[in-house]
């Protein structure tokens, strides 16, 4: 203990000494001779080689030791912003510093805005066109001075430099991606996501006056996905917007403004800060201050009535979850389960009402238990620090193989290859069929419906899931269970009102045929899942097919010789040997079912689709680069397992009208393949919604917010969705 104190005292003295020496000279000492400071600084450039006319980015990287921080352009109640003094060759000019979003640093009584661990201040450097800059290497130098604070504050400065080649071409440097990464942390304008108003709450006779800032989200996903808004003001000599923020409601903030001199400000300028699933984002805002609060009617629509956009309440989201669950019932991915349910109802139609009701509840229980399990997985994934998303399990090849096998077995069962009933007899009569669709069957159907439904999103559902994912565990559980209730509701309702089932024909031998007919949509599901697996395994997926054929053969032996035959013992042994051998040989040895093929191999097949669009693979950098170049960006988030992506969005994109428009706008078209649910994509998707399909259009104006296209409704025709896309493209071109 004592030892540490001494060490600390020594360090402190050294630090204090350093600043004394500097203070004595009255000038910042030059050169990197300071060893005592707690921040290391370096300069990087986005390009190794640039040509006259180029604007490249310089990044001043500040790495702080643990516990130390440096300051934002408005340092807040104390501190000092970092300064950069450039020493540039003539013909090269530096623009203003672009500051990444800072943090609010405690204590509350002296709040400052700054950076801990690391930040990178970005500065555009322009190489003049008509400069007489000689070709060849030039030195880009700067003196960076900053104040670093922990328990004590130490002013420090350092000379940094980097080399730049002036030539007739541009070559980006190895650091370009790092710079783009930091550029993404600089607040952007997001004007069409929010409308902002500010007004003085009352007159003031002294020098402090309360100000209300109201952010009205213009897109519902914005109101749901973003939470905890705050406002970091730009610094001013005349007045100070206090760091403490009082929330009037979800999107209205009250700030106290302290005036030093002159009149009350007429406008405020700063950064709107929001949280999104543990991440913070900033949006530049400048807004005039009205002298009075807006008129009564406008207030009542934003404050008194729970406006849909201003503050999504849990109740509203629960309603959305329920409606979303209901709609899932008619999504194509749940279709085979509907067929099974119809079969169930037909066979039960003449049973005792009580029994029918009970089976309805057991089905609902199956759905709810499955949703609860899913909520648990989502919470665990979130707790582990990853982003969770709807349908993310389809990114796991083991899951896909198991589900494919399971659905195949359901189809074979419907075809009568084998039975699930203990007796194993062929079921002819209605009573027998009913007994087969007993409690375990109903529960299983609930499970299957849930699992298959997660590959689809539906209207409203995206909002509810997005809301859940950005909230705490109890909210996640509540929303997921409510989706489950919505999914199960129609069947529970039908089971409780047998009168509604009167229209169904009398059970009879026709049902055996109907059962087989129902098997085909289930078989179609097997093919769809097989296609998902194909993108995980590439050409190796052949062995999944081989595996499934042997499983089917084993099922037939089981039905024909174990259940209905005489030599049960030996037949069962053959079934087991077949399955074990099949697993070891096909799955383990040939398919390597735990390993996916590499990303590069997987995406090329998708990117080179021959639809006349020059698809490029999506990445945040690709978006940033295209936007920096002033091009509109079109991003299609899609996945092999996503039914609506392939049934509605993809054909809509292949319409000539859409292709022509994309080409005419010279848009950069990016394909975001979410089949394997890469985490950075989950990140991006959860910014605007909950799952695929999702289409984002970034307008030509690099500061404008992206347009999030509405999700296609399940019964929408591709041509009508193509119209939606075209309209959005028209807006983006402006």
């Amino acid at each position, binding site marked *: 203990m004592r030892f540490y104190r001494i060490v*600390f*005292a020594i360090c*402190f003295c050294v630090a*204090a000494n350093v*600043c*004394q020496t*500097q*203070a*004595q000279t*009255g*000038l*910042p000492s030059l050169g990197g001779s300071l060893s005592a400071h707690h921040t290391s600084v370096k300069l990087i450039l986005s390009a190794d080689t640039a040509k006259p006319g180029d604007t490249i980015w310089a990044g001043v990287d500040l790495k702080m030791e643990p516990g130390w921080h440096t300051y934002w352009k408005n340092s807040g*109640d*104390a*501190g*000092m912003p970092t300064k950069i003094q450039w020493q540039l060759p003539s013909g090269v000019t530096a623009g203003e510093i672009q500051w990444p979003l800072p943090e609010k640093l405690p*204590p*509350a*009584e*002296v709040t*400052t805005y700054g950076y801990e661990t690391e930040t990178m201040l970005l500065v555009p450097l322009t190489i003049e066109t008509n400069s007489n800059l000689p070709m060849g290497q030039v030195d880009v130098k700067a003196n960076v001075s900053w*104040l670093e*604070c922990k*328990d*004590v*504050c*130490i*002013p420090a400065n350092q000379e940094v430099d980097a080399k730049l080649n002036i030539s007739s071409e541009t070559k980006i440097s190895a650091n370009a991606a790092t710079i783009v990464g930091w550029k993404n942390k600089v607040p952007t304008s997001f004007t069409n996501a929010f409308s902002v108003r500010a007004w003085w709450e009352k007159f003031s006779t*002294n*020098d*402090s006056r309360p100000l209300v800032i109201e952010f009205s989200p213009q897109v519902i996903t914005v109101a749901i996905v973003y939470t905890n808004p705050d406002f970091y003001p730009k610094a001013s*000599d005349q007045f*100070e917007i*206090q760091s*403490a*923020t*009082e929330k009037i409601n979800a999107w209205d903030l*009250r700030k*106290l403004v*302290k*005036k*030093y*001199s002159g009149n009350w400000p007429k406008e405020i300028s700063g950064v709107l800060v929001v949280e999104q699933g543990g991440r913070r984002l900033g949006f530049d805002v400048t807004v005039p201050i009205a002298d009075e609060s807006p008129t009564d009617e406008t207030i009542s629509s934003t404050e008194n009535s729970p406006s849909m956009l201003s503050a999504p309440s849990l109740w509203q989201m629960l309603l959305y979850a329920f409606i979303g669950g209901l709609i899932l019932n008619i999504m194509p991915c749940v279709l085979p389960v509907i067929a099974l349910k119809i079969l169930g109802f037909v066979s039960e139609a003449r049973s005792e009402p009580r029994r029918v009701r009970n089976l309805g509840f057991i089905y609902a229980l199956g759905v709810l238990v499955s949703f609860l399990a899913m909520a648990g997985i989502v919470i665990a994934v979130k707790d582990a620090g990853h982003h969770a998303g709807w349908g993310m399990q389809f990114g796991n090849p083991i899951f896909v193989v198991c589900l494919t096998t399971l659905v195949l077995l359901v189809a074979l069962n419907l075809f009568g290859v084998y039975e699930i009933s203990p007796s194993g007899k062929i079921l002819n009569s209605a009573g027998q069929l009913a007994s087969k669709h007993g409690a375990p069957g109903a529960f299983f159907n609930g499970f299957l419906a849930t699992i298959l439904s997660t590959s689809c999103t539906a209207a409203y559902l995206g909002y509810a899931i997005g809301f859940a994912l950005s909230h705490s565990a109890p909210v996640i559980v509540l929303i997921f269970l409510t989706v489950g209730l919505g999914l199960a509701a129609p069947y529970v309702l039908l089971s409780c009102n047998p009168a509604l089932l009167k229209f169904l024909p009398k059970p009879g031998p026709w049902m055996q045929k109907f059962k087989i007919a129902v098997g085909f949509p289930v078989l179609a599901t097997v093919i769809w899942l097989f296609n998902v697996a194909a993108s995980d395994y590439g050409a190796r997926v052949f062995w999944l097919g081989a595996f499934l054929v042997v499983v089917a053969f084993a099922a037939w032996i089981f039905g024909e010789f174990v259940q209905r035959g005489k030599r049960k013992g030996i037949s069962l042994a053959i079934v087991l040997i077949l399955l074990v051998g099949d697993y070891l040989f096909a799955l383990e040895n040939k398919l390597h079912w735990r390993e996916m093929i590499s990303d590069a191999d997987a995406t090329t097949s998708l990117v080179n689709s021959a639809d006349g669009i020059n698809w490029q693979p999506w990445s945040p950098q690709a978006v940033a680069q295209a936007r920096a170049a002033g091009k509109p960006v079109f991003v299609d988030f899609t996945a092999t397992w996503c039914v609506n992506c392939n049934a509605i969005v993809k054909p809509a994109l292949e319409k000539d009208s859409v292709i022509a428009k994309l080409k005419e706008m010279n848009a950069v078209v990016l394909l975001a393949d979410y089949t394997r649910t890469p985490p950075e994509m989950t990140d991006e998707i959860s910014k605007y919604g909950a799952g695929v399909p999702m289409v984002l259009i970034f307008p030509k104006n690099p500061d404008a917010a992206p347009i999030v296209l509405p999700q296609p409704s399940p019964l929408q025709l591709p041509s009508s969705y193509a119209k939606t896309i075209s309209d959005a493209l028209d807006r983006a071109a402006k």
Partner: protein
Amino acid sequence: MAFAASTFAVEVGKPAPDLTGTDINGKTVHLSDFKGKIVVIESYNSDCPFCNNHYKTGAMPELQKDFATNGVAWLIVNSVNPNHPSHRTHAQAQAEMKDKNITANAWIDDSDGKIGHLYDMQTTPQMFVINKDGTLVYDGAIDDKADPFHNPKTARNYVKEAVNDLLTGKPVEVSQTKSYGCSVKYAE
């Protein structure tokens, strides 16, 4: 909570709140002891490079001496909490007063932050000027250069201006500015 705390107890143009503290010689000091005098209050922490700059360059001791000859009282308030490395025991403070050539009527030990909070002191340095009637006439920065390396003698010193305005019977021209410097090291 934090919001309520920032509705200010101190307000320029209003009577300065009476403060009571113990100085580094163990003497009790009240603001009212200086009634009829112009009083300057300085929020102080010499480990802070912004404060240190004003002492190292000799600007602050010079101003203090100049004011003392004109009958202006000067109170130093040190609100650094006792667990902070910049905290000064009374003995250390007495030595520092000599060492830094400080001329002040009292160096008040405010290690519990009571006066700091009463006056809503946020930075070191932060300056207050109180006229002979006990009205607060200036609250803010020492000068217009928020920089730990500048030469204070070339900066516009708001405290000097305010006191000179008072001495010559003129209204104080700049009565409020945003103070700059290190945060006051209150106990957490």
